[in-house]
């Protein structure tokens, strides 16, 4: 088996929860997270600005056999469809990788971590912010 390279960053061009963060700032947050968690950071890929496109995320998932995992800028970058998210978690874990979210400091490295992530996404869907 080929040697695995590290953790691929994943940033976006779409607003998250109504807020926009410049892409170079997203990269700084990911790079800092990787440094603190002692992860080898690999240059981020930027998701498309077109609503509903996850083509870049799919490319990273295809790359998983060569990676230790991926670091999302935020957990809220995952697709809104729960079934699709669960496919992503399964794929990450099946490949022996882990998934991180830098802003929320979340690590998903086993099946038992999934519910906590889903709880955050679900609450975020319904809770309002003053």
């Amino acid at each position: 088996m080929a040697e695995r390279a590290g953790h691929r960053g994943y940033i976006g061009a779409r607003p998250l929860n109504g807020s926009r963060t410049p892409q170079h700032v997203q990269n700084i947050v990911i790079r800092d997270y990787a440094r603190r968690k002692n992860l080898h950071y690999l240059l981020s890929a930027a998701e498309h600005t077109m609503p509903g496109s996850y083509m870049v995320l799919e490319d990273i998932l295809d790359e998983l056999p060569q990676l230790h995992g991926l670091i999302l800028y935020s957990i809220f970058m995952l697709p809104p469809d729960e079934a699709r998210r669960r496919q992503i978690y399964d794929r990450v874990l099946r490949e022996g990788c882990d998934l991180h979210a830098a802003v929320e400091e979340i690590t998903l490295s086993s099946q038992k971590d999934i519910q906590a992530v889903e709880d955050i996404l679900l609450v975020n869907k319904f809770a309002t912010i003053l």
Partner: protein
Amino acid sequence: MTDTDFLHADEQALAQRFIDDGFVTTPADDRAGLDRIQRRAAELAADYLKLPHSNDPYAMLDTIHTRVSVDDLNGLRLHVFNGLNAEPWFRPTYFRLARSTIETIVGNELCMQRRVNLSIQLPGDSSSLLATHSDVWSGDSPFEVVVWVPLVDVRRTKSMYLLPPSLNGDMQDRMASLRSAEELYKTIKPHATFIEIPYGHVMLFNQTLMHGNRVNEEAGTRWSMNCRFKSIMSPYADKRFGEFFEPILLRPATRVGMQYKLPGGFHG
């Protein structure tokens, strides 16, 4: 030029090539400036690798794969990238490499990306690839152009590919049915053109067109720089004025216009 034309014939021809092909290549306006950039890049690479400075910067860059591993490549790239961008002469020189072409294609009140990017692609290395994309899809404005400058001769997979404007729209229409950028590449592959550019020339291309690179199957290492330019007053997307772009040419009439206030205080 006839007395009814606003543009010179050579400007019209250049503009038409850009529209038809999606790119133009021209000899660098400032060849000495390009040589200075190439020499400085080679010096910075030698410093990083703890080697003496070479008298032949082209050979130093083109054969860097014999001196650096894939694992250390990003460290080298960042060292050269930071070193070049720290030079106060670097960005003005980069602009001068293509100034006449930029002014014909974009305009003469310009903003420029704050940092000039650097790509290094070792032969056979799959770690530094850019999947098929248009810059617009990741937050660039469709009003921008990219000035792409190789520091070595580039051809075939040592270069980048671009999809011709005549096919870009049809391919975009198919995108939503595809799963990944790799699938997209397979769809456009028969039509994508790798652009041959000898050292000493620069390319200006339409970044709304799909482009990317593949594993470099040529013998030498690719070194290329890229930087975005746009007309200051044209619309911005996610790559904003100030944080991503900064003004480099603002004309006096625009400064006057931006500061002008109509007389006030009327109560009638």
